[in-house]
């Protein structure tokens, strides 16, 4: 009896193991509860410390990138087995359920010589689940052996040698899972920002050589219906004068740093300010536009952008501030992006000054002030009225 019963037990055990394995296998990472460890996504070789992607995980870059306190960023996309992105000329590519986007933020030890290495800070995951996109922050441990899910975000003290040789420090902010939505929300949905034609239309240095990202994705079978790169839109590279005019580069910087909120479906739609590079109405992108709910952010200035006068423009004031109630963007950065700010300043300074600003304003005119002082003429008019 014993052997038989042992066999039965073994069979039962095997069943347990099978069921357990089945339970795992049938549930891809985007269907279960969010992994508590980044390693569970299987995106990177080894413990991920070298950021070397595994098979099927494609690294990519964007033309102009969001400023994140001088962090270097590594972006990756992994489509579900057999899944394909579908090209769109203006909107985010249609990415199937199961798509995982990863962005790792790292602070180089010495910005003048990136070969000296870097400190991995966090990897943000955007995952397309059945019920929509979800954003999850993973924070690397100091030994860079693993990154753990931190839904409430956190802070990390970092230091580095800057481009000018100065040693800088920062209390780097890892946004919480809700703050992910602060930038990634469009209408009622959460969506990725990077995977758009105009951001992705550029070359990338793959292990196998330099290639346009569209062409590479198509060859890999993960992108459908993309036109030739020359026929697709391409945003300027904000710091590469060969990639576009001053206007195009400043608008590119404003789009990637501001337009995720400041567009008609974004979290800052209530401001009426649309900083998408495709916006053609100057009032909509801030020229002589009055602030709406800027509060202290107006800094006592009248308009978002005053052509030719960067120092009279609220936009400049806000991107040059580190005051939490004034600074823009308000999330995900603590430092001022000196180089980007200089570009926007140059752009506003180069605008043709508008004669409309000096248009007749009776209440502010010399005559208006005379009224306030009690001009005899007006007294007479008022008396007549009585």
């Amino acid at each position: 009896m014993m052997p038989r019963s042992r066999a039965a037990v073994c069979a039962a055990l095997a069943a347990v193991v099978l069921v357990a394995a089945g339970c795992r296998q049938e549930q891809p990472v985007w269907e279960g509860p969010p992994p508590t460890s980044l390693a569970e996504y299987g995106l990177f070789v080894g413990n991920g410390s070298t950021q070397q992607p595994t098979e099927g995980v494609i690294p990519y870059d964007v033309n102009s990138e969001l400023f994140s306190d001088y962090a270097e960023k590594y972006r990756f996309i992994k489509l579900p087995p057999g899944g394909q992105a579908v090209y769109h000329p203006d909107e985010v590519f249609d990415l199937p359920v199961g798509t995982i986007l990863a962005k790792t933020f790292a602070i180089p030890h010495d910005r003048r010589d990136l070969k000296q290495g870097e400190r991995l800070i966090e990897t943000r995951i955007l995952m397309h689940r059945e019920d929509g996109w979800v954003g999850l922050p993973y924070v690397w441990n100091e030994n860079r052996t693993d990154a753990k899910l931190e839904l409430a975000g956190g802070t990390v003290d970092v230091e580095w040698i800057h481009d000018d040789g100065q040693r800088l420090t920062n209390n780097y902010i890892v946004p919480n899972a809700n703050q992910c939505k602060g930038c990634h929300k469009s209408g009622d949905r959460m969506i990725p920002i990077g995977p758009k034609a105009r951001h992705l239309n550029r070359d990338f240095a793959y292990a196998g050589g330099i290639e346009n990202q569209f062409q590479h994705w198509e060859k890999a079978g993960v992108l459908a219906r993309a036109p030739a790169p020359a026929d697709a839109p391409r945003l300027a590279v904000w710091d590469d004068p060969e990639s576009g005019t001053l206007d195009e580069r400043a608008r590119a910087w404003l789009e990637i740093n501001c337009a995720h909120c400041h567009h008609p479906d974004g979290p800052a739609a209530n401001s009426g300010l649309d900083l998408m590079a495709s916006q053609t109405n100057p009032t909509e992108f801030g020229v002589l536009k009055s602030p709406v709910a800027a509060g202290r952010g107006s800094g006592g200035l009248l308009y978002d952008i005053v052509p030719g006068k960067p120092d009279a423009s609220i936009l400049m004031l806000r991107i040059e501030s580190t005051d939490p109630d004034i600074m823009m963007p308000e999330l995900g950065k603590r430092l001022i992006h000196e180089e980007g700010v200089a570009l926007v300043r140059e752009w506003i300074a180069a605008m043709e000054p508008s004669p409309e600003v000096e248009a007749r304003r009776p209440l502010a005119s010399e005559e208006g002030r005379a009224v306030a002082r009690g001009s005899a003429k007006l007294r007479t008019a008022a008396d007549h009225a009585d």
Partner: protein
Amino acid sequence: MGDGTGQSRFPVGMLAVIDTLALSVACVPAQAVEFFWNSIMNNFRADVLAAIVLIAAISVGCQQEETSSGAAPSLVRIEPGADAARRIQEALIQAQPGDTIELAAGRYDFTSTLSLDVRDVTVRGQGHDKTLLTFTGQRQGTGGEGVSITSDGVEIRDLAIEDTQGDALKINGAEDIVVRNVRTEWTGEPQETNGAYGIYPVMCRRVLVEGCIARGASDAGIYVGQSEDVVVRRNSAKENVAGIEIENCTRADVYDNDITGNTGGILVFSLPNLPAGNGSVCRVFDNRVSDNNHRNFAPQGNIVGMVPPGTGIMIMAYDQVEVFDNTIANNQTVNLAILSYLVTEKQFDDSDYDPYCEAIHVHDNRFEGGGDEPQGKLGTVLGALLGGQFPDIAYDGLNDPAKVTDGQLSESLRISIHDNGDADFANLDLENFEPPLKWPTVSRDADPYASPLEPLAPVIWEGLAQ
């Protein structure tokens, strides 16, 4: 996950499901299998039973994940103490629709914005004098607001939000929102460095702000912008630049509020270049709007920066506003002003924008004192036209030329002022204020405006408590 530090959770949410799985064989097999194997060695029959139970447990585990979104509503209680801000934020991120997050009495210090983006969640304190959320140490790069709500069906109640860097409570793009018995305050002297708005729903639908207290905002204590179906009632606003501001909304009722000691009491504004378009249909009634003579401490450039200290109620560029049964007293510049956006002298480029007030109906209000010390640029320049004393009701007389026939607005668009006791009135005729070319002729005759307009309908929606 913050368990054991004053936080408890019943019965399951996403984390609870993770915990359940972690205890099941499927996800942490080592101990369980060891136990299993040892018991097999000792007692075969029990083992078979155990195996069956385990298999069942595993399959239940798998199913449970799939159905976790249907979990019963739960109550999460959080107490002050170490890491409380983080515990609250985690609870708000992990909340399921229907959940209530209850904050015990005490003080909670935040260094970053507290945000909620899960629908149908209630956040409840023990009273606006007992549960205090303070943001004195708020750091840059973590958001400008104190509390940010972006999901539908949320109720926040019985707590205070103090000393935020930016806005205290911002609710953006949500429906069916209740803000009840909440206090938003900048606790020191009112000053320019205070945040802009206290209670700030914007681009929302069906918003009730009730029983709240707002103090010290450098823009508006209670500001509802670009929203549809709004009720603001039984609140108190003092020592803000604007007590209550309704901006570019459609259908708003503002009643039973006590508005005193602000720069301007109640502002009903329609501004250009906004996605929601022109503001219309607003009833302001049964309010006490008195002694709003505080210096204006709004940063310039903001629209409220031009509101003169001593303004009771100011209606600007709005259509269909009914102001009735209010007590409007001792506002030193003007108790009630009806103005066009043109008086701001600001540029706008918005072909859909209507900068004029139309269909304004002012009746059955009690006016007392006020108008005797006009201040600010608007107050002094226009006050001079009036010989230094504003009437209770001042109207700039600016109308859309396209809508005026024989000098009159049409029957449905006209201004109506009647039954306001002995309140006095002036039409400032700013149409003709073009110094030095043209000078206005002020008219103090209210008779042309005496014919009543139809009353506006109350704002109601299903589920709005009375």
